[in-house]
């Protein structure tokens, strides 16, 4: 009886422990207000950039991306799709990028962002707890961070993780 119980405990332990991705670090900012920041637009790009003040009043998605990031390229069509649905404002946080590269990348892959801010030195990213790209945050109407997604968004993520939460927060 005892060996069986020990086996059961170990089985549960490994079932949980081995299926979790150690590369994904939970955000310390969940349910916290967005950090104070203000980003200028990409040099030579459109718009006025964005900052913490823009992330209040409506549900927002903040997508951290860079032209040098390959997975960003993979998820970008879905980001464009999400922005097209008009269920949330979708901001692009251009992380540690060269303006010319970023502008070319957006021209090539499409730019449906509500606005894009250039975080050239990564300082805004630091305040957001960014440790890699892509990362995507969902911010509620009160300007609180409600969810952080690490890595590229897949269609399943969009359907099962993003849209339900956005819908709930939009109520």
């Amino acid at each position, binding site marked *: 009886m005892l060996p069986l119980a020990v086996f059961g405990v170990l089985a549960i332990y490994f079932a949980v422990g081995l299926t979790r991705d*150690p*590369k994904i*670090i*939970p*955000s*310390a*900012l969940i349910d916290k207000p967005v*950090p104070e920041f203000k980003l200028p637009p990409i040099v030579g790009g459109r718009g006025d950039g964005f900052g913490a003040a823009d992330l209040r009043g409506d549900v927002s998605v903040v997508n951290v991306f860079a032209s040098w990031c390959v997975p960003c390229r993979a998820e970008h069509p879905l980001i464009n799709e999400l922005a097209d649905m008009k269920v949330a404002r979708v901001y692009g946080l251009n992380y*540690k990028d060269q303006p010319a590269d970023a502008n070319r990348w957006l021209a090539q892959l499409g730019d449906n962002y509500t606005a894009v801010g250039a975080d050239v*030195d*990564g300082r805004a990213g*630091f*305040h*957001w*707890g960014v*440790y*890699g790209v892509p990362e995507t945050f969902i911010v509620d109407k009160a300007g609180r961070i409600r969810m952080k997604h690490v890595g590229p968004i897949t269609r399943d993520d969009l359907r099962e993780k993003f849209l339900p939460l956005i819908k709930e927060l939009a109520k």
Partner: protein
Amino acid sequence: MTLALITLVIGNPAPAHAVNPDEMLADPLLELRAREISKGLRCLVCQNQSIDDSDADLAKDLRVVVRERLTAGDSDSEIIDYVVARYGDFVLLKPPFKGATLVLWLGPALIGAAGLAAIALFFRRRRGAVTPVGVTPLSDDERARLNKLLEDGEGTNGDRT
């Protein structure tokens, strides 16, 4: 003298650090504090290196932040809290002792104690139990009959020899 020199050279190898000269602070005391703080902060990209050791871009950013806060006059614990507020406890190479980390800190001791208890129980049972498993001990009646038989048998045996 030679021996002292050898021990100094061999026993004190300068570890390879990732801190670039241009990141260093002019004030050696502040720089020393920066190094100490950096040794306790995890590089989130490489995970098992401190930002003092790591060459990753993010580690460099964090080193610069630590030095900026030091120059601004923050205390060591204020700087650590500043980084933890953004990256969580995971950024600390030595996790804090608190509710969420109780299992982490006490788990090994508890498992060790459980193991010792199991060993103690095993030996106590073995000493206490003379009857092997699966054998029913003799009842009082049977024991009395056995004793009688033995006594009788001894007598007969003695007669034969």
